[in-house]
């Protein structure tokens, strides 16, 4: 392999790619050639680095210099200054909010500094489309160890001892699930990787598949050996084309190297993986619905028990784990259960990847040890709330989870503590909300999602979510009454207890938690017909500050032109007025006024 003096790691996760990472990469390569540096400096494309809010981004080794928000225009200057003359370019570096000096090194940026990477161990460090880069970082050594020095029972015992729990949501002990599948009677057994990630705001599985697909394959091969499965399936959603592409490349390479297929490492063990593309139904993330879809049936759940570990794909024992769970397996095998079990809390071991999105300064994917305080994620890694706003709550676990209010900011995050607070770990979405977020509207948003995604098989979910959504909509429009609150609560409990699958059983969680922690907001929507966060527009009153309209905006008239109901009157250079009787409260005037003259009450 030819030596290079510097490697430029261009992030090519979906986030950066949609912001032009490939154009930046081409520009870099062209400029490097132009300067005659092509034998000294090499450009490598990697998977997602996690700091998606500042992409496209680039990490320069050996010094670990981090560049952000790159455009093709920046490239000639960057190449000349840094790669030719050795002067890192400050203006392209990350500067923390409320700080003036940039932080050149990736390892010293707050967002990266406090993370602990296990599932994301190779993110941004390897080219995901090159198996040798994965092997260079100790890839497939866990597999070599499992196949050559361990019995299937020993592998299962190691996973049990590590106390790894399913990262897809429910948190069932992975080792126990493996053991149940291994002990099932039939000889034919299957394993499945659930890559049908669908929670709004969660994208850790996609990121792992894009940045380190071999870690999933290695985890699955080890799992297959332990369980005694001959065939594996990866159920991946159609909306993840880049992840799919890299996964297929990885499978081809693993086959070429003899790591998948017949007689792996000459041990007589054979295993193959097939990729199945999902068609975009959220319910297929539920394991029984996923199996139906794999069988070519409609993606609808069925009652459990029997659980898939006994009666799964085509009736055979099937072990289903989520992407992040599989990605942890190779390291647990190669470094041992003891090492893993030392990380985290008593009942939640290891790390968890969270996608930190919403009203937060540093948007991105973070991997942290279990038990970390919510405060450290929001204010430490996340860098706090933008524009000096106040933190209000965070929604964990997507539409199946619930909100955690400001008062619980020192909550240590693990499976139990989140459940106790009324939410759940889920796949690890964290949607941060500030004072401008209306909690009733948030509940309504998530119910719109679950109502839309309900498959319709059981009536508690099909009709229940619809009815819950109707009540919430009524409240946000100012048509609710106090009895609606009891109805919401009662109906939520009924849906929770009677729905067939996880989708329906968890759908009311956003309502129950927002009612528990923010009941006053519901009451002010109903009693005072006011939305405290001024989000529910039907409850707002829009007026014009006449003085501001004249002195700042000189009666520009933009609001008048934009008003769909012609409710605004006025002349140039004079104050405008809204006729409250005609106004439909669409808020268009507020959106277009550049002078802050439209007041919302």
């Amino acid at each position: 392999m030819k030596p290079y003096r510097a490697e430029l790691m261009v992030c090519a996760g979906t986030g950066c790619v949609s912001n032009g990472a490939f154009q930046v990469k081409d520009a870099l390569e062209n400029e490097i050639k132009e300067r005659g540096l092509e034998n000294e400096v090499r450009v490598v494309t990697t998977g997602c680095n996690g700091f998606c809010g500042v992409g496209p981004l680039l990490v320069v080794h050996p010094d670990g210099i981090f560049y952000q928000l790159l455009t093709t225009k920046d490239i000639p200057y960057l190449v000349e200054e840094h790669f030719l003359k050795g002067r890192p370019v400050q203006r392209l570096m990350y500067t923390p909010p409320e700080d003036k000096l940039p932080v050149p090194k990736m390892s010293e940026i707050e967002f990266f500094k406090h993370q602990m990477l296990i599932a994301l161990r190779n993110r941004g460090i390897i080219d995901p489309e090159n198996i040798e880069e994965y092997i260079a970082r100790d890839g497939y050594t866990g597999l070599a160890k499992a196949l050559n020095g361990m019995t299937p029972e020993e592998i299962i015992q190691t996973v049990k001892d590590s106390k790894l729990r399913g990262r897809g949501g429910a948190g069932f002990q992975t080792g126990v699930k493996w053991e149940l599948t291994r002990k099932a009677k039939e000889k034919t057994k299957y394993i499945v990787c659930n890559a049908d990630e669908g929670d709004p705001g969660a994208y850790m599985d996609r990121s792992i598949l894009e940045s380190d697909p071999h870690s999933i394959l290695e985890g699955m091969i080890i799992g297959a050996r332990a369980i005694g499965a001959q065939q594996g399936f990866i159920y991946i959603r159609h909306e993840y084309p880049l992840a799919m592409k890299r996964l297929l490349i990885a499978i081809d390479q693993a086959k070429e190297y003899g790591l998948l297929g017949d007689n792996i490492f000459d041990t007589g063990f054979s295993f193959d993986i097939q990729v199945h593309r999902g068609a975009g139904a959220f319910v297929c993330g539920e394991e029984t619905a996923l199996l139906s879809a794999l069988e070519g049936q409609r993606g609808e759940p069925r009652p459990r028990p029997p659980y898939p570990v006994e009666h799964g794909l085509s009736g055979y024992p099937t072990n289903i784990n989520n992407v992040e769970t599989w990605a942890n397996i190779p390291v647990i095998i190669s470094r041992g259960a003891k090492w893993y079990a030392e990380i985290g809390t008593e009942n939640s071991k290891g790390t968890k990847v969270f996608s930190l999105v919403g009203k937060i300064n540093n948007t991105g994917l973070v991997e942290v040890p279990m038990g970390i305080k919510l405060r450290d994620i929001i204010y430490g890694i996340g860098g706090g709330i933008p524009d000096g706003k106040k933190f209000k709550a965070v929604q964990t676990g997507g539409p199946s989870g619930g909100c955690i209010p400001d008062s619980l900011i020192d909550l240590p995050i693990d499976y139990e503590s989140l459940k106790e607070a009324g939410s759940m770990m889920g796949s690890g979405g964290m949607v941060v909300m500030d004072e401008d977020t209306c909690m009733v509207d948030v509940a309504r948003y998530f119910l719109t999602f679950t109502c839309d995604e309900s498959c319709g098989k059981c009536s508690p979910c099909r009709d229940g979510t619809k009815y819950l959504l109707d009540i919430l909509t009524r409240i946000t429009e100012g048509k609710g009454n106090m009895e609606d609150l009891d109805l919401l609560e009662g109906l939520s409990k009924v849906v929770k207890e009677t729905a067939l699958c996880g989708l329906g059983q968890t759908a009311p969680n956003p309502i129950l938690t927002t009612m528990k922690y923010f009941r006053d907001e519901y009451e002010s929507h109903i009693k005072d017909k006011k939305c405290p966060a001024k989000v529910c527009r039907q409850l707002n009153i829009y007026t014009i500050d006449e003085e501001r309209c004249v002195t700042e905006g000189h009666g520009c008239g933009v609001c008048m032109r934009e008003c769909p109901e012609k409710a605004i009157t006025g002349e140039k250079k004079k104050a405008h007025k809204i006729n409250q009787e005609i106004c439909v409260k669409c808020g268009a005037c507020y959106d277009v006024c550049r002078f802050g003259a439209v007041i919302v009450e």
Partner: protein
Amino acid sequence: MPKITPKDLARIREKSRQSTTLREGAGRAKVTVHMGTCGIAAGARDIMSALMKEVESRDVKDVLVTTSGCAGLCSREPMITVELLDQPPIKYVDLTKEKMQKIFEDHVMNGNIVNEYALAVGSERAH
């Protein structure tokens, strides 16, 4: 590509070690070529090429090569700084390809400072 064995994994790891060293930033030695305008005008690019050739022909995998700006002593360019792990940096001045080769052989590979080309031990303090 024939089927690989567990032994091949180690072979592939070894082959990629130069790249791994680079990405982990953990080399045994680091050579910095000063590439300010003055350095480039005095022939720093040739020094860099000579250096890269040494690294390649000797198949060394634990030496980091990097560039930095002008070191402030423009009349003595081309200039490099050699840092071995846990040792103070040494600056070499008025370099040529031949001098570069000798420094690589004596200092980088064998740990003996080439006194006749060295300017001083240590770097000025940053800040």
